[in-house]
């Protein structure tokens, strides 16, 4: 590496660090992303400029075509995706990075022509292949769960832990063979295949509602795999940028699970051994009845109450009902009703989801209350209006130790005088469990798409 290249990479690393710093404050976040992007352009551009003389003809072709294709996929994917589908998009973009890191390491091992690699390149190669492979396959499963290509509920079977443990043991054994005996392509191909399998097996038993935490963890994993590739290629930029993401991503994973009031191990391994408990503790939905109300009744109830707390959830995002909910809130405020929004940290499918949506509809910032500051207020609220949220208001998190969400902090909606649920159907929430609050005598249901229901309520309040 020339001195100039070293300085270019150093500058890129500084831009990444400054970018991350900005990204962690609301004011500078967008600028932070641009700063980090500038670092990326510098690092990649410089690398191409320096390499240009040494490219093989085939090398030029695959780089140009590859970058063009990747840019199109990335731009179109990121631009076209619905706001509600952004978490799974992030999972995909993360997974492909892990896959690339694994392929870089595979290519380096191929160059040895089957000879046993030296430890100082062999060890990081193995690491990049295994962690990159796990990240790729795990992210693909996370995507499938969030996109509802497969069930979002945990997939468990007896002896699962043993199977996963065995997979891990075989991977370690293959790694040792690669480092100590032979660099044969058979060994590292098998290593990659098993890493992919472990990635799948690792994410299957985790419920859809926990996916943001899993994606964050896999993001940190990809960072470390990239850093390992940096050791293989002896490249400063890869080591520093990859490690930054690995470290900050690990911390972020912990912060996210703290926000859900769960430990990381509970999220990752909580579903194991619950095969029987899960089946036994499901509330029997049939036999109990819910009270469905008309929009007119509910509108009147809202119009003549003193305080209303709106609890937005994923259903609001799906229906794109942020403008409708604001219209209703404005109308109620004009009538002198005190309106606030209770924002659960993980409402929707990513932290901050609701803030983003409501900000788009220009809901005044002062009306958005975080969980800790609003939870004491429900006792005094006349109506809690739950718009497409379910798990984050499910009292089972407090009362039912067998429940998968037991221990998760929830909004104390059940303490309000009356509760109104706007829901499409009686389908359980993303965690796949029933909500006893729906059967509570003080609860009224208004079935239908959140946007349509809100529009009906607006009309009803106007007429009240």
């Amino acid at each position, binding site marked *: 590496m020339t001195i100039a290249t070293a300085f270019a990479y150093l500058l890129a690393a500084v831009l990444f660090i400054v970018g991350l710093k900005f990204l962690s404050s*609301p004011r500078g976040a967008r600028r932070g992303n641009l700063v980090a*992007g500038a670092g*990326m352009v510098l690092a*990649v551009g410089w690398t191409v400029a320096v390499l240009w003389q040494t490219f093989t003809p085939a090398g030029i072709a695959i780089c140009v075509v590859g970058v063009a294709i990747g840019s199109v996929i*990335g731009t179109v994917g*990121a631009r076209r995706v619905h706001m509600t589908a952004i978490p799974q998009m992030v999972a995909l973009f993360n997974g492909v990075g892990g896959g690339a890191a694994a392929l*870089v390491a595979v290519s380096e091992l191929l160059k040895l022509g089957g000879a046993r690699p030296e430890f100082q390149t062999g060890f990081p190669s193995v690491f990049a292949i295994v962690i990159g492979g796990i990240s790729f396959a795990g992210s693909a499963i996370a995507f499938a769960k969030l996109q509802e290509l497969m069930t979002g509920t945990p997939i468990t079977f007896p002896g699962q832990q043993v199977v996963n443990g065995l997979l891990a043991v075989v991977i370690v054994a293959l790694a040792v063979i690669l480092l100590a005996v032979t660099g044969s392509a058979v060994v590292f191909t098998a290593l990659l295949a098993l890493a992919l399998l472990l990635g799948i097996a690792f994410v299957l038993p985790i419920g859809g509602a926990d996916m943001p935490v899993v994606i964050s963890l896999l993001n940190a994993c990809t960072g470390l795999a990239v850093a390992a590739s940096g050791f293989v290629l*002896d*490249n400063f930029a890869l080591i520093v940028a990859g490690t930054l993401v690995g*470290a900050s991503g690990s911390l972020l994973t912990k912060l996210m699970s703290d926000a859900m009031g769960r430990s990381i191990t509970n999220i990752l391994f909580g579903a194991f051994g619950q095969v029987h408990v899960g089946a036994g503790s499901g509330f029997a939905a049939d036999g109990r009845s819910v009270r469905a109300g008309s929009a007119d009744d509910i509108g009147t109830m809202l119009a003549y109450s003193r305080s209303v707390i709106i609890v937005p959830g994923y259903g609001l995002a799906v229906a794109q009902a942020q403008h409708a909910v604001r219209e209703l809130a404005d109308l109620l405020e004009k009538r002198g009703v005190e309106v606030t929004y209770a924002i659960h940290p993980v409402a929707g499918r990513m932290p901050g989801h609701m803030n983003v949506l409501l900000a788009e509809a220009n809901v005044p910032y002062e009306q958005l209350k975080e969980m800790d500051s609003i939870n004491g207020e429900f006792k005094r609220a006349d109506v809690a209006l739950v718009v497409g949220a379910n798990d984050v208001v499910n009292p089972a998190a407090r009362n039912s130790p067998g429940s998968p969400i037991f221990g998760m902090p929830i909004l104390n909606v059940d303490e309000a005088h009356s509760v109104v649920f706007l829901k499409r159907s009686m389908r359980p929430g993303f965690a796949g469990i029933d909500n006893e609050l729906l059967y509570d005598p003080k609860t009224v249901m208004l079935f239908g798409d959140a946007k349509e229901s809100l529009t009906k309520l607006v009309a009803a309040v106007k007429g009240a």
Partner: protein
Amino acid sequence: MSQHLVVLITYFVLAVFVGFEVISKVPTILHTPLMSGSNAIHGIILVGALLIAAHAETPLEIVLGFVAVVLATTNVVGGFVVTDRMLEMFKGRRH
């Protein structure tokens, strides 16, 4: 172990500390954008993919290099664009 390797390990260890330090106080609403932004940064693997693709000669090397470049570019471009889209939503909230 060469002295050079020790230097690389030093970068690694220092970067771990910087990574922890730099995001230690982040509000909940920024968790997802931050995850997405750091996701874009590990797209730096594109540099590695270009390094192996540049000298690809055998058909196998060409295929591996090509796939690695496509995957890595998707990571970089998609990562930054989707983060920007997310953060775009925050504007206009602070009047």
